[in-house]
């Protein structure tokens, strides 16, 4: 009897060890797409007209964000108080955000919305937590852009948001990341459509982020940038926005 009891204990212990080995292996495995920031960003915008628009959020003062919500109260704190959640099954994995946009001088020059839906190819086994992300950028007096990208949040979820939520302690640091993971072969997002000054412009874009703090309540100190790489304009009278 003692021998059987010990054998069962050994089996349970071995099973747990096996589970933990696999989980820690996937957690630590250097999935190739995780290192894309260093591969893609150095050449971004080479030979192109680059425009950068930023949004931010802070813990101690208002940022540019006007509204954010998703399917539940986590991971990002819904804002403002009373904003409804995306609780219906068809949109539960998504996100809806409104933000003002700053130019490179820090001045507010436009408005943007970010709408996300969960990407059907997201897999833990491949280290991909992806969304279909659509940005709509309107720069009054200049025009609008509809931008589409596939976005991956594996590192954000496993190294920042997950640990903060599990431990109940805030994450602090300086994490810079290229969020965009396509769909274009060079890793950029694509311009779906554009109007006004941008109507005849061709180009691509990426979304980058710098996270400085994330609290267990889902509040953040962060900056994100939308970086447009536009083919040089052929129209000598066109105005570079804004």
């Amino acid at each position, binding site marked *: 009897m003692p021998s059987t009891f010990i054998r069962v204990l050994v089996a349970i212990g071995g099973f747990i060890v096996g589970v933990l080995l*696999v989980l820690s292996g996937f957690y630590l495995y250097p999935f190739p797409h995780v290192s894309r920031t260093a591969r893609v960003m150095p050449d971004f915008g080479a030979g192109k007209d680059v425009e950068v628009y930023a949004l931010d959020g802070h813990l101690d003062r208002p940022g540019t964000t006007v509204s954010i919500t998703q399917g539940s109260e986590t991971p990002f704190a819904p804002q*403002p108080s009373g904003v409804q959640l995306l609780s219906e099954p068809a949109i*539960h994995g998504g996100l809806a955000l409104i933000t003002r946009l700053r130019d490179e001088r820090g001045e507010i020059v436009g408005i943007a919305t970010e709408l996300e839906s969960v990407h059907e190819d*997201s897999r833990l086994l491949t280290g991909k937590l992806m969304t279909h992300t659509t940005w709509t950028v309107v720069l009054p007096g200049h025009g609008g852009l509809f931008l589409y990208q596939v976005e991956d949040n594996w590192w954000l979820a496993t190294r920042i948001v997950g640990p903060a939520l599990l431990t109940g302690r805030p994450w602090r640091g300086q994490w810079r990341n290229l969020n965009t993971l396509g769909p274009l072969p060079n890793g950029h997002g694509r311009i779906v459509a554009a109007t006004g000054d941008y109507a005849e412009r061709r180009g691509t874009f990426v979304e980058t982020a710098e996270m400085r703090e994330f609290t267990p309540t889902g509040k953040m100190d962060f900056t994100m940038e939308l970086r447009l790489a536009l083919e040089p304009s052929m129209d000598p009278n066109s105005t570079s926005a*804004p």
Partner: protein
Amino acid sequence: MGRTFLIAVLAGALAAVIGLASFDLAGVSQQPAQLEPAGDAGTSTERWMIEARDRIAATGDGLQPVPAGIATLRDARLAGLNVATMKVRNVSGEVVGVASRITANEQDLGVRAVWWTFVMGTRGTLAAYLPDQAVTGAGQLLGGTRSFDRASGQFSEERQADGGYRLRLTRMKP
């Protein structure tokens, strides 16, 4: 005993791999299009609706703030602009996507344009545009992704008294 431990480790590892592989991160529910019976040759028509309760957030010139405490847009460059995010329903009343609507001056001509963006889950993204808000029904589809890739055709919005919308899109068949 050592053999038992080794077998258990392998079983645990296999169970973990199966668990990771079968974990459904997406939970995507398919929402097929509800097209109207064919009208003009070469087009297909679909209607969506947004009810007053579907407004997620709204702020800016001429819009009732939703929710009540939402930030106002006081920046000089955003004067006269308004923006909203909303849930979108099909004609059966089911929520099938999310949308944003932005109204602003396209260029410095005093004409207010409207940019609509629809994210309809696995169906993809659709971009629509009304170059002059004052001209009812004169909108156009500008393109999209996936099932809306290269979408073109007509788009119209009909504002309801309660703040909702009735939307109609007539796509040219590729």
